[in-house]
């Protein structure tokens, strides 16, 4: 098995194990009553969670038991793409925060522009900004104006630009 895949598999399996343990803990600490002979509110989730715990432990143990194979990852290119994924993830999180608390349209414009530059550093900033502006205009036009999706614009509202 590929080294990176093995690590990710372990992370997910452990995560699922911890998650199911946490939910089990919650389930056992939630009062759940039922009329006699019936399943109570937490019975079904408990069954599912025990199943989840069992399978995640199985996957974890199996993962640890398989011998790690030597893979000659060409380290530099691999690291670089992992780095890009990380940056993109952070960008997306930042985007969502700005969307919520500042302005959807501005956040979208900034995000698309910066994202393009991250993926292809050879692009010129001005190009990124202009194309980003174009795309976000279309998005705002379609969703906000045409289909009346109320995407939050606290900044623009407080500035009195829109209602």
């Amino acid at each position, binding site marked *: 098995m590929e080294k990176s895949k093995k690590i990710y598999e372990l992370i997910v399996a452990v995560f699922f194990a911890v998650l199911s343990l946490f939910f089990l803990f919650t389930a056992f600490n939630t009062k759940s*009553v*039922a*009329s006699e002979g019936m399943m109570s509110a937490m019975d079904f989730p408990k069954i599912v969670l025990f199943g989840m715990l069992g399978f995640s432990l199985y996957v974890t143990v199996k993962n640890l038991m398989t011998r790690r194979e030597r893979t000659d990852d060409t380290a530099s290119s691999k690291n670089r793409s992992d780095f890009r994924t990380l940056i993109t993830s952070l960008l997306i999180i930042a985007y969502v925060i700005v969307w919520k608390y500042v302005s959807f349209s501005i956040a979208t414009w900034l995000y698309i522009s910066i994202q393009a530059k991250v993926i292809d550093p050879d692009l010129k900033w001005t190009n990124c900004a202009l194309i980003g502006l174009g795309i976000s205009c279309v998005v705002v036009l379609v969703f906000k104006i045409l289909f*009346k999706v*109320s995407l939050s614009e606290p900044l623009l509202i407080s500035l009195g630009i829109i*209602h």
Partner: protein
Amino acid sequence: MKKVVLYATQIALLIAMLMPGYGAPSSKSTINFPTREIKLIVPWSPGGANDINARFLQPLFKEKFNVNIVVENVAGGSSGVGITQALSARPDGYTLGYASSSYLALIAQHMIDLKLDRMELICVAVEEPITMYTKANSKYSSLRQVLETNKANPGSIKFGKSGTFTTSYIFSSLLQREAGTKFTAIPFDGASRVVTEILGGHIDVGISNIGDIMTQVKEGSILPLVVFAEKRSPVIPNTPTAAELGYDVFSLGKITQASFIVAPKGLDPKVKTKLMSMFREVLASDKYKEFAAQRGFTIPDLKGEEDLNQYIQNVNRGFEVGAKEFPIQ
């Protein structure tokens, strides 16, 4: 002396002018509302009975006042999310919420931190009578038969309801307590499932709003047994009320399944008055009345703000007591 009278009248006039809504006749023309579209938040997914009732207001507002009402569905949390959003909007009258008794029930359960005093009431748009029914031409033709059967053989009547802590839940609990018997209750996700199960003969009786069984009543495939309201419903005039059958289902207070328009607290009184009068006019229109008759709901006749607040508080109090007396397991 003359001067005193003059001053007094001047002061009185001044006070009168400062008082919202009462002052000089010109004050009515000074509020310029609405100047743009009004957002009406419906706290359910598109397609439910509440959503359709709310959307019906759109053409009426357009026709009467040339005002656009934009319905926005903010679903989630048994209507809690949408109404919370509506009530936390800027109180300028351009954001309203389409709340229902479900929201009041949610408050009464105290599972989530919600309070009644955070809203301004604009109008009660819909009051849906609750009815208990069975399949037409089945074993049962009256409520008495159903109750007797269940008494003879406890739990033999399978009783379908939609949702858990609802207006129907309170009424059915009260009925069962009054009659001294207990059905086997089966909660479904929606009223249309209850109707399907009744038609398929899988359960014996069901309970829901009249609107949910209108089609089947007209077709003659479902027989309403009792109406949980103070008066008989004009759409099913042959069905007796619970009181007529000798069961008091209003002992907790006047609980109804109502839908009402709310605005965030702190609304300009002038805007509120304007909104209230606009809604009153729309609700009194023939088209809306015709729609109400088709959907099987009524429009409660509430005179002023007092009436409105009283109405909603009654329902909420009923739920509060109901939550204590009939806790859901």
